[in-house]
């Protein structure tokens, strides 16, 4: 790191240097915008604290987000940052914010929406609360399913749907998705300079948040395949999916997880989902919504219908997600 307090802007500069054809940066506001934005589609934006890379700058581009608004590490972006993004990407069809269920983010996005509405910008809001760690649905935090909502609603917007439709689809993804995380090591926030919790070598923090908030339970170390079972069971029970249902699965590391563990765990999750008779329409493995250098893993599943499947497989071109649809017809 260079100067403290500059790390987010410098990181975003790096991202834009790597993908200059896809995205651009407003360095004053730390906002990443899609380059070459369409004027006749609903704009989709999101934002939140930094430290979760590649979320969300890595998902800006064709078929996904029009803007990603980056706060300081684990800190909500400010109202004016968000308002600036809304003004920049606004179209006649309006601006849909798809964000995660955290107090600061909600207050700031809502406050920005009020300001944008004064400018006659149509705005709508969808809040993800897919983390099953907490019992109370109202309290549930937003996690990985948010990214799938960006992919699927992003494709809907790209198709030219009106904001009410795009919002309905984003909400449908949230309603049909669940996520759960565990940590094997804590993560350290640069500003705080200390670890978020202490963990013994043989313990797993179960139901961890994406900011290294302590989980809901501390369990003894179990083999990867057993952990896969415990986590998937939790998701399947809460989402109430059954044999024969089609799902999309996301298995990811949390920033500091070695590839080897990610891939072994991915194998274990897929095997277990298979054993349950769930049909995996598609899967993602890697890192999507991380917690700085935390070692751990998150699993998410989304129960899909024909609409979600179609939109999930629609083209996208972002730093991280590059979807090239399989066409059964070739023309030349």
């Amino acid at each position, binding site marked *: 790191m260079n100067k403290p307090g500059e790390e987010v802007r410098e990181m975003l500069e790096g991202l834009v240097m790597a993908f200059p054809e896809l995205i651009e940066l407003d360095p004053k506001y730390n906002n990443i915008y899609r380059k070459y934005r369409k004027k006749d589609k609903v704009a989709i934006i999101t934002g939140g604290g930094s430290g979760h890379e590649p979320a969300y700058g890595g998902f800006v581009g064709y078929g996904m987000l029009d803007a990603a608004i980056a706060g300081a590490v684990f800190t909500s972006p400010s*109202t*004016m940052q968000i308002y600036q993004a809304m003004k920049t990407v606004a179209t006649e069809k309006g601006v849909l914010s798809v964000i995660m269920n955290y*107090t600061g983010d*909600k*207050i700031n996005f*809502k*406050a920005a929406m*009020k*300001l944008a509405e004064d400018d006659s910008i149509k705005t709508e809001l969808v809040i993800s609360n897919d983390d099953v760690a907490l019992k109370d649905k109202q309290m549930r935090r937003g996690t990985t399913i948010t990214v799938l909502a960006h992919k699927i609603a992003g494709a809907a917007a790209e198709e030219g749907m009106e904001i009410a439709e795009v919002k309905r689809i984003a909400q449908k993804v949230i309603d049909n998705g669940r996520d759960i995380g565990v940590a094997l090591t804590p993560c350290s926030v640069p500003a705080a300079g200390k670890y978020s919790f202490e963990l013994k070598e043989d313990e797993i923090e179960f139901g961890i948040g994406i900011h290294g908030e302590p989980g809901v339970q501390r369990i003894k170390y179990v083999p990867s395949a057993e952990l896969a079972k415990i986590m998937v069971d939790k998701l399947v029970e809460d989402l109430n999916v059954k044999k024969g249902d089609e799902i999309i699965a996301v298995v990811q590391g949390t920033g500091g997880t070695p590839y080897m563990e990610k891939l072994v765990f991915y194998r274990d999750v897929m095997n277990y989902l298979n054993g349950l008779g769930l049909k995996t329409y598609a899967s993602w493995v890697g890192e999507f919504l991380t917690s700085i250098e935390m070692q751990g893993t998150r699993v998410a599943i989304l129960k899909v219908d024909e609409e979600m499947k179609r939109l999930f497989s629609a083209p996208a071109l972002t730093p991280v997600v590059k979807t090239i649809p399989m066409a059964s017809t070739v023309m030349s």
Partner: protein
Amino acid sequence: MNFDAEFFRCFLKHASTEIQKNERLLTDLDSEIGDSDFGVNISRGFRALDKDLNSNEIWKLLDEAGKTIMEEASGTFGTLFGSMLVAMGRISKGKKELTINELKRMFEEAIKTVEELGGAKRGQKTFLDVLYPFTENLEEKGQVETVLNRALKAAEEGMNSTKNMVATIGRASYYGENSRGHLDPGAVAMYLILKGIKDCLK
């Protein structure tokens, strides 16, 4: 008497002075049940206001002040307080002077906005516990000065009442029962902001 742009300019200036004077106190209070950033944050916000208070239209004065606060003091309080100023401006658009009744409407709108954005209600140990009694005591009957003094008295009591409350929203709620016994920093700030009002009556 009625409330014009001059009154609101004065109100914001007094608020700025009070907040900057008490920066340390507010940070200390936030260090007891928050994240110790409150005084620094909000006084930076108000400092930025000082060069911004030129408009002669009530709504614009409040709108610009609100946006500046939001830009410069981006914590929970800054965002809610800034949004509240913008909302107060919004409903006074076009008016050159406000009656006390209209002032009351303005604060009611402010409260509605804060409730909408932050989801807090009475008794949760926030600055709303100062705004509610203050606004409720803004009545048409009686001398404006007397009314305002009564409202400020109620606001002060509201502030003090937060000491015994358990925070059930915002960062202070993480402290649970341990938040009891401490004044809410946002409530103290709100009282300091309102306090100047009576010095702005012509």
